[in-house]
């Protein structure tokens, strides 16, 4: 098999697995991983709800995004919006360990719209961090933060050989069963 094709399939498989694992783990943290589809216009749309969990009333939402693609890819940006106010941040480098600058939007309690997008065509993995804070401009203490996907790119289906497909299917089935058991208990 062509070496470049193998690398590409491996990269897609890695991104898909990261996305599945990230979504499975997101319920107990204010982080969310995903993969933007190849289309240059692809946008992943989340809503983050800030509430008082006993730590204090929310005053702002702090957000940050990190591109997690293992190779050179478009830049990943995020925009956050509430009422008639918005802010944005971009991870300036591909495939490194640094994230975008942390930005905050002062919007109090309620739902914030968060959009993750990119600067061109190509699959792009990302890790999104969101945290509601009791102070303005991302200051103060952490407080109640819940995230929900509104329109999110489905994980890509990697073109793996037969054994690889079965292994991926088994891994996904096991994850789904684990998640269902956790929700039932």
């Amino acid at each position, binding site marked *: 098999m062509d070496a470049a094709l193998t690398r590409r399939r491996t990269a897609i498989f890695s991104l898909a697995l990261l996305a599945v694992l990230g979504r499975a783990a997101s319920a107990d943290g204010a982080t969310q991983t995903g993969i933007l589809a190849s289309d*240059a*216009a*692809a*946008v992943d*749309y989340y809503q983050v709800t800030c509430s008082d969990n006993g730590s204090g009333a929310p005053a702002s939402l702090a957000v940050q995004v990190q591109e997690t693609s293992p190779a050179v890819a*478009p*830049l990943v*940006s995020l*925009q956050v*919006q509430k009422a*008639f*106010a*918005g*802010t*944005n*941040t*971009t991870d*300036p480098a591909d495939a490194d360990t640094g994230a975008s*600058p942390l*930005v905050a939007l002062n919007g109090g309690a309620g739902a914030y*719209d968060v*959009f993750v*997008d*990119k*600067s*061109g065509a190509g699959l792009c993995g990302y890790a999104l961090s969101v945290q509601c804070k009791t102070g303005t401009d991302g200051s103060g203490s952490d407080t109640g933060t819940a995230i929900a996907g*509104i*329109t999110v790119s489905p994980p890509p289906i990697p073109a793996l050989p037969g054994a690889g497909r079965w292994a991926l299917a088994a891994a996904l089935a096991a994850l789904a069963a684990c998640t269902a058991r956790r929700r039932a208990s």
Partner: protein
Amino acid sequence: MRYTLAIAFALALATGAAAHTQTGALGAAASATDFYQVTCSDDGSGPPQSLILQIQDTTSGSAPLVGVQGQRGSQTTNSVDPTSGDTNPSPQTYVNGTSGVFDVVVYKTGAGADSYTLTYHCYTGLNGTGVHTGTTIVVRQNQ
């Protein structure tokens, strides 16, 4: 530089509504964001079904890239001008949605003042097809 951008922005505000283009300037802060609301309506040409968006970065040199992101309900889109200061805009993109208000955000990929021309048109067909119909814009945030 800021003075020139301010004059260009003021002139555009005076003339942009009829042409359905809006020029603007994003400040030096990396997080600077301009927020518009575009209202699509039936002006006699037919009820709207989509909004077309396109953006052109009009600052030459090593300015950050400029992008536009549109949203209506759960429908979203995004387009970034891949080259600053040339004569070519970003790819044209669209959001499907009927009569009403679309949120449009203009952003950039890093620090540095940047100017842009935003083009927006409501159309009677899905995916930016059909004919042009009623289109108005309001500035909600100018950073």
